[in-house]
Every structure is written in C-alpha cells, then in structure tokens.
C-alpha cells in the first residue's frame, strides 16, 4: 500500500509551522511521530496535499519542571521519554505508567505526547484499507453516511483510544494551542467533543505545542489499568486511570478517567464526590467501579464484545482504586 502523493514541509520554528498550516489550511496535516498518521495515510483515510513535519522544531521537545512544582511537556516529547522521566515517575506517576503501556517500545520511541493527545478515534469499520472500506460501502466517519456500529444512528461512535489522555485528565492537564493568529490554553477536558468524527476542537491551522501539569496535581498516587489482549502492541480496549491523595487514612482528593470506551476520554463524574472523605474499601471501590461502567459506552468498534469491555471498566476501576490506595 503506497502513500498518497503529498508535499512534505519541514518548518524549524513554531511560527513557521503555524504560517504553513494557515497557508494550506484545510488541505494539510501535522506529522509528529507519524505512528498514527502514516498508517492512516496508507489506508487513504487522509490524502492531504501538504504534510507539515514538526519534528525539527526543537523547542517542542522536552520535559521542564517549573519552579512552583508544575511541569511543562513539549508536544514532541516521545512517550519513551515520558515513561522514563525520573521527575514524572516520582511526581506524576500515572502519566509515566500510562505512557509505558502505549503500543510497543519501538512505537513509543517514535510516538509523541502531542500525537497521543490528538490521536484519531478508532473503529474496526474505519481503520481499514480503501479496498476494504469499499467492500462495506464506507462509513459515517469517512466517505459514507451510515454507521455499522450503531445502525440507523447519525453519530459516529469511533472510540478514542489513546492511553495518556485519561491520565492527563486525572492530572487536570491543560494544553497550549497555537495558530498563526493566537495562542490559547485549554483544559484537556474541553479539548474533546465526544463525537467520533470531529473528535477534537482543533482547527486545521492549529498546533498543539505544550502540555501543562499543574503543581496541585503533583504527588498523587496514580494507577493506570489497560485492557488488551496482548501485553504489547495492542491499543487499549478499555482503560482506567486513577489518582488519589489521602489524609489521615481518608481520601482527600481523587479522580477517575476512562479511555477507549467512548469517542472521547472522560472523567467519571461523581467518582470524586463518592470517594472524598471516605476510607477506601472494597465496597466503595466497587461502587465507583459501577459509576465508571455507567460512564462507559463501548460499542462494537473494537475487538471483544461491548458488554465485556464495560464489565472490565468496572473491574479495572475497582482494582486501580484499591492499588492506588495501597
């Protein structure tokens, strides 16, 4: 399967990059590690005339602890760097742990945090070759107008399947988005739409440049649990991130977030309230597991049946909470 023809542009600065994006707006794609974009282009899911390769913008690479204890992570920082960073492992362990479960070592060397945040939503009816998609008459996410997963529906249910965003949601992360016209900073929770097609609020001329982890989120106990069939390579079929902080044996703060079971990574609403001020025991963990299972709306977008995946959200949430509390 060959790549479609395109023009490769290689800016050296953010300014240059956003100017190029503005210039070719609507007909351009950002390439970071390329581990998601390149296979998708081969499958003709994207056929842009221009590809802006941002890998040479060195200011976008690196993990910088700030004086107040917060951290700034450049969008180009590799998942391996995040997985291995002693600073992140110590203070934001849930992120390192989640990064370490992505794909395989080779893909983590190439894949970036920015790419993981911007990762396209996935579905068995979508992530296929052109020839394959032709055989099923295409789908609502690409080239067609119906959904094979929720027949009759007009919404796309392709699942957001990145591993680090649930961890980032638990850490109340913000991201910085730059365009030729402006710089904005948004909470990651605001970035995703919940629709499988227009899954992120990012204009064609915009670039994600940085991720901010607030000082207030440092030093939580964190756990990430990922359902997959193989211990390597596989995307999550369900994922749960948990952070919590205790004071005098009681939970002082906690958050639970999910991935791979909805078109967006989601915080489990109500989980924090249910946990706050309580002592974590099996029953409480199970109750929060039930809440998480209600938040999850898995469909037949991936392997393993939806019902099983929702069950696993319940089990994994319970286990992650108990592990974090120990």
């Amino acid at each position, binding site marked *: 399967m060959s790549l479609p023809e395109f023009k490769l542009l290689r800016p050296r600065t953010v300014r240059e990059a956003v100017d190029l994006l503005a210039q070719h707006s609507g007909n351009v794609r950002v390439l970071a590690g390329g581990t998601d974009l390149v296979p998708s282009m081969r499958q003709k899911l994207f056929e842009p005339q221009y590809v802006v390769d941002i890998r040479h913008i060195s200011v976008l690479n690196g993990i910088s602890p700030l004086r107040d204890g917060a951290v700034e992570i450049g969008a180009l920082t590799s998942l391996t760097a995040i997985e291995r960073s002693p600073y992140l492992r110590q203070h934001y362990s849930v992120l390192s742990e989640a990064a370490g479960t992505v794909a395989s070592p080779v893909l983590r060397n190439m894949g970036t945090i920015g790419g993981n945040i911007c990762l396209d939503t996935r579905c068995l009816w979508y992530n296929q070759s052109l020839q394959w998609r032709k055989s099923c008459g295409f789908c609502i996410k690409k080239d067609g107008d119906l959904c094979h997963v929720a027949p009759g529906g007009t919404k796309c249910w392709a699942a957001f399947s990145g591993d680090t965003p649930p961890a980032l949601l638990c850490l109340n992360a913000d991201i910085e988005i730059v365009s030729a016209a402006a710089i904005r900073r948004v909470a990651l929770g605001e970035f995703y739409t919940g629709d499988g097609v227009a899954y992120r609020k990012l204009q064609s001329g915009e670039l994600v440049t940085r991720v901010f982890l607030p000082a207030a989120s440092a030093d939580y106990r964190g756990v990430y649990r990922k359902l997959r069939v193989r211990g390597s390579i596989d995307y999550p079929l369900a994922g749960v991130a948990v952070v919590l902080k205790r004071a005098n044996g009681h939970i002082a703060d906690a958050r639970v977030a999910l991935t791979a079971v909805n078109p967006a990574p989601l915080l489990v609403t109500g989980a924090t309230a249910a946990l706050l001020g309580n002592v974590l025991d099996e029953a409480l963990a199970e109750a929060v597991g039930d809440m998480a299972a209600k938040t999850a709306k898995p469909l037949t977008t991936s*392997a393993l049946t939806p019902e099983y995946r929702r069950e696993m959200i319940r089990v994994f949430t319970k286990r992650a909470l108990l592990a974090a509390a120990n």
Partner: protein
Amino acid sequence: MSDFSIIGKPIAMVDAAGKTTGAGKYTDDLSVAGMLYGKILHSPHPHARIVRVDTSRAAKLPGVVAVVTGKDAPNPYGILPVGHDERAMALDKVRYVGDNVACVAAETEFIAEQALELIDVEYEVLPAYFDPEESMKAQSDFIHDNKPQNIEKDYHHVFGDPDKAFTEADYVAEARFIAQEVTHAAMEPHSTLASFEIDSQTGKPGRLTVWSSTQVPYYLQHKLSLVLEMPMSQIRVIKPLVGGGFGGKSEVIPLEIIAAVAARAAQKPVKITYTREEVFLAHRGRPRTIVDLKTGVKNDGSITAVKARVIQDGGAYCSYGVVTILYSGALLGALYDIPNIQYDGYRVLTNKPVCGAMRGHGTVNVRFAFESQLDEIALQLKMDSAEIRRRNLLKAPCITVNGLRVQSYGLPECIAQVVTRSQWNERKGKLPKSRGLGIACSHYVSGAANSIIRSDMPHSTVNIKIDRDGGIVVYTGASDIGQGSDTMVAQIAAEVLGCSMARVKVIAADTDLTPIDIGSYSSRVTFMNGNATLRAAQDVKKQIATAAARKMDCTLDDLIFRDDVVVNKRAPVAATPANGSQPTVVHAEASVSGRVEGQILRGSLQQKRKDEGPKARLSFEEAVVAAIDFHGALSGTGSYAPPPEARGGKHKGAGVGPSPAYSYSAQVAEVSVDEETGEVTVHKVWASHDCGRALNPTSVEGQIIGSVWMGMGQALTEEMVWKDGLLMNPGLLEYRSPSSVESPVVEAIIVESVDPEGPFGAKEASEGSLAATIPAIANAIYDAVGIRLRESPFTPERVLSALRAKKKQKHINLTEGVDPTAPTTFREHGGSLCFKGKGPERHALDPARREAQVATGGAD
C-alpha cells in the same frame, strides 16, 4: 549409534548469517532490469456474477503497461487434481471478498494502485453463504455449479464396529467442539517476480523464470505450465529465502500465476508483493471446524470407540480441502489404540477466503476436541489424566484399525518425560487457587506416503557432485522456508561423507538445477529429502571408497570416513606416522580455504605414481582425487519413495493419513486464570517430542517452541472475525498472534525413538507438537477454575462468561446485542449492496455515487 560427528550437533543454520545481517535475499528484495509492479483488483462482493469488466480507462493511465483479467489465462488449476476450480483471475464469478478480478502492471506501485481505481466492473450480486451448516442447506446459487449443497466433499468411514462398541462401553462422553478459523501469519508476505526471456527465434516471450516465496516450487512449475500452456521445461522456478510458510505457501497462491500472466502481457518482468491484507485474503489457513465427538470407554479407561462428525468451513475453493477433511478423520488413529472408529467429514464451501493447509494440517482441531473429551472422561472415571493416556497406548509396531502403519512410537516416553519434569504427580491438584496443570498428546505424519499427484515418481531426489578439491555440492529440490532443510541436507551429506560442514554447499529449490522434490509440506522433508540425500551421499561415498580401497589395499568395509580423513581401520595405528613424511596429507583440522591447487595436482601425481606400499589413511581430497582419476566425474544420486507397506488401506480416501513414520508429542501446560476478568496466563509448557532422532537438536527445539507458541496463539488469542464474509481483522494489529510478552517458558524435551526408516532414525519435528498445546491449555484451565471450554480461542470474554455461568453469576452476552436494533447482518442496513443513503461527502468510489452519475447521465 550415537557416534556421529555432525548429526546430533547444534550446528548453526547454513543461512543464518545472511538472515541475521540482512544480506540474505527474499523475493521482494529482488529486482531485474525493466521490472514492473503488479497490483491486483479484488472483489468487494462475497458472491457475484461478473457482468462486465472494462479496463480501458486503466490501460490509458500513463505508466500502465498492461492490464489483465481472467480472459487472459482461463485454464483452471488447483493444488489437488480433484480440485481444479481456481483461475488466475475470475472469469464469470467472484466467490469471496478478495477474489481476484484483474491485475495492473505499471512502472510504479503507486501508478498501479491508481489504475486499479479506473477499472470498471459491473457485478450482479448473488446470495452468499457464510456459515457451513447454512451453506449445506442451499438449494440454489451454489458457489460452484458442480457442487450441489455447496459440499466440496464428504466422507463416511467406519472401522471395526463402533455401534456395538458404544453399547459395550461403561461410559460415553459426547459434546460439540468448535475451533474458530486461524491463519498462518508468516512474517514474509507472499511475493513473486516473473520474467520472460524473449525467444531468439520467434521474438516472442519464450522461457519463463519465476522467483517466488513458495514451499512448493515443483507444483508451481506444474500449475504455471497448465495455466500458461507452456511445457514445464520452459519454466524455471527459483525459491529465494522464504520468511516462513506454515502451509500458507504450500500451494500455488493467486499472485504467483497472476504475476506470470501479467508479465506475459506486458512483455516485461512483473513483481507482485502482497500487502498484509492480501496475505489474509489469500489465506489457506485452518478452517473453522465443528466437531461433534463421542468417545466410549471401559471403567479401566480403555477406549472402546470413537465417533466424530466434522464440518469444515472451507471457503470458496477446494484448495487442499479434500486432504484436510481426510486427515481430520485418519489421524483419529495412530496416536492411541482405538479399536472402533466412525468418521463423518464434510468439507463445505462458503463465500469466504480459501482455507488450506496449516501447520498440523487437519489434525489440530479434532485433536483439541479429542484430548479435551479424554480429560472429561478421566474426571468421570476419577482417573489421573496422564494415566488414562497411558492406558490407551498402541502396541507398536502395528497397523491401526484404519490402516496406518506405526513403527517407532515414542509416546510412552514423551508422557513420562513431561510428567516427571512438570512434577505432575506431586503438583497436580495442589497448586494455588486459580492455577492449574493440563496434559495432552498429539502426533503427526512425517510426510504423506501417497503424494497428492498420485504418481510413482519418487517424492524426493537429490544429486551430489564432488569437485577435485573435495568440495561437495548437494543439489536438492527441498525448499528451505526457515525450518532449516538446507542445513539438514548439508549435515546428512557431511556425516555420510565424513567431512566438515564447510565443504558442503547446498543448491536448493531451483527447478532448472535441482531434481524434483514435491515440496515442504506435511513435514516430509527431513524424512524424505533426508533419505534421498543419505542415499545420494552413500552413492558417491561408495565410488570414493572403491578408489580409496584400491589405493589402501583393503576392502570397502575396512574404511572409515570421518573428520575429513579416510582411514583403514584394520591398518596398525603405528602405520599412520610412517606416512607423515608425505607433505600432501591434509590434516583433519585444516581449513578448506587453506588448500591450494598445487596440493591437489601433486596428490593426483602421487596417485598416478606406483606407491611403495598401501596407505593407512588418505585425506578426503586425496580420496576424492583418486576416485575422480578412477571414475571420471564424481557424482551420486539418491531418491526416496515411501515403501508400499506404509501406504495404507483400500477404502475411499485411504490415501490420506498413511505416512512412513509418525512423530509423537506430549505436553503439560501450567496456567492461571484471573477469575474476575477471564484472562488466562500460560506460565510454562513442558513439551516433549519424539522426532526419531534429533539431527540438529537446536533446530528441533526451535520447532517445538514455535509449535507451542503457535498453538498457544490459536488457544488464546488468534481468530479470524467475519461479518458477512468481510474479514474484520485483516492485519497483524487486530489479528492477535501472541507477542513476546505472552510467550511462556517452554521446556522443549527431545525424545528419540530412532525410526527404522528415517534418515539416521529421524522423523518429523515441526508440526506434531502444535496440536497438543491447545487441549493442554484447555485442560489446565479446567484444572485451574473448573470450566470446560469447548470453543477456541479461549478469549477472556469466553472464559469469563463460562466462569459466570458456572457460578450462576450475571450472564455476559457474547453476541453483539448491546444495541437492540443491531441487525444480524450489516448488509441489511448498509454496505455496498443497498447503499442508498445520501451522505454529504460521498467518496468518488462509492458505488451509490456512480449510480447517481449514471442516472444523471454524468460521466468522466
């Protein structure tokens, strides 16, 4: 007999360096001047009549050199003489999503892909069959007109008196088992490069050379000859390095024929390499199999009768199907002593990619059912599950009730080994909660005693040529596909001729140079090509020995060939140094490259000179020179055909199953099950395998480990998922072969029963182990958590749903009924068949858009 110098040693594969450094060339690494790239247009429909194919727009695209369709090569072919139902490309009908319709040869892969989109095909869609049991009820629109009810073939065998034996049994178990479809997933995707020479006399395409990733160069040559209507002698098939086959390259795969058809039309060389998706569509894997199995036993555990009804979902063409369904029945025999067998096998056609041969061809899914059921029976009889297997051993040598001749039989030792090493007796039943041990056995043929082409031709022939400097060239048709046959051939030649491996060069699998070998499948190569090599080596050795004996004034029996020296064993030991004054004696350790021509010439002169007295030893070169001077050119030949006694019974279908020798395997698996998630972890597998003799123990261990690993894939994670004939997971991301993370520790245990007919006693080593792994894991899961899984793979959801059913907990729905409106087949609500919606951004290739254009008179 263990006094070998090369055999039994862990010698590095002769092609290891090229493979590990990247210098080795696989087919896709090759290119020739002027070469074009071929791309195949596949059917988007599971079953449709082709009304019209218009390639004119594609042919006009700059860079396109040729576009070919079924009409360019209409002759049918197929791997089995009874199954010539395939064509290079579809003529009138397509029969699965992925069936071949046309091929473009263009200057670049990109242009070829573009051109595919310009081929207009009009289809008339037909009802399609996806489930074998439904397919068997078909009344019309048969997949092949000459196969009513879509049954490719059915067999009904009765051996002994099973009905009576069941009534005499103390306990009868009966259940349905299902094994889902799996595929080989060899690392190297199929690739073929076809090139015609221009005939000097006619100026037209003449001789054809094909480089292909194949396990069967000779069959490829034969089928090319049928389809292209060329004599075989005009076709040369060369097999470069092959990155794994596992059966997926053991017949002619569409691209191999298509590349040649396209090259002929283009009058230029054409290379086609499959995408991974195309590899899945070419398939030829293990069919989804439904096994209804009934076993009767006496209270002492002895089996009285077995009845199996097997339905295989074979896909759209015959392929090896008739052989697969026969193996499934025949290999009920030859593992245990079963006096009465009834077998009903149905090979059914469906509108899906074609199933064929895959590692453990025919036996694996039935073995899963059988060994699982045997475990259930042991439980009923309160008998240890290793013990029930011991109670049913064959009394070899023997001929089984279904006509299989068993000679060497290492199964008892295989069982003893795994029981001891796993501490079965000490640990079984005493492991921590949710952890368990399971045992199972299996076996396989060392090649089929009757070749599929049903001729009296030897199955293997090997030629050996020895040069004046003692360099040995072995010409073998054996196809090394990574299993190590080149190394095996070199080892046998070196052992027989008593020389070092460095002297031996193997030229393999090139139909112009090497004598016929029918291919690398059914684990026949070591046994058959090994025997042919052995005989060829003995043939030349005899010629050398005759000359040497003359020179050494002794009989042939007095000579020992070893360590690059020929010694008269009767000569007094002291005689050896007496010859030390002769500078021409090349010491045993001397490197081959260290020899210079002068020595050889001098050797020759000395040979001519009347010797003062007989020598006690000659270097290998001296002996060779003596023989060449004496006989002229030094070459030998050997061939192998299975003996008539091994060729089986007389009943219909008796040809499949008989083998000159069977390998045996026993395995114990240790697993744990997460009872909340259903996830199964395999911690360790003890796998013993009776390979007769391990010619190269490292190689045998590699095969055992690989078999266990591949079996574990089928047991736990691998499954082809279909939606109305559309493969949902045509790639290595979604088709989940285990990664290194899941790989358990495998303790490979070699058992050597020394077969009377195998080369140095060797038998099969690469397939027999696979079948035991699946039931060993199933039985271990039962031991761990008390659930009997009768459907593979044992995915976490299947395990969890069985656990919940057992504990009477909340049911897990394994169908997709999460959305109550979900139809059972997607084509009812969408798909290209009834795609009538009006999406905003309809793709240019959307058939509905094309219809709309036609309606409005639009054209491009």
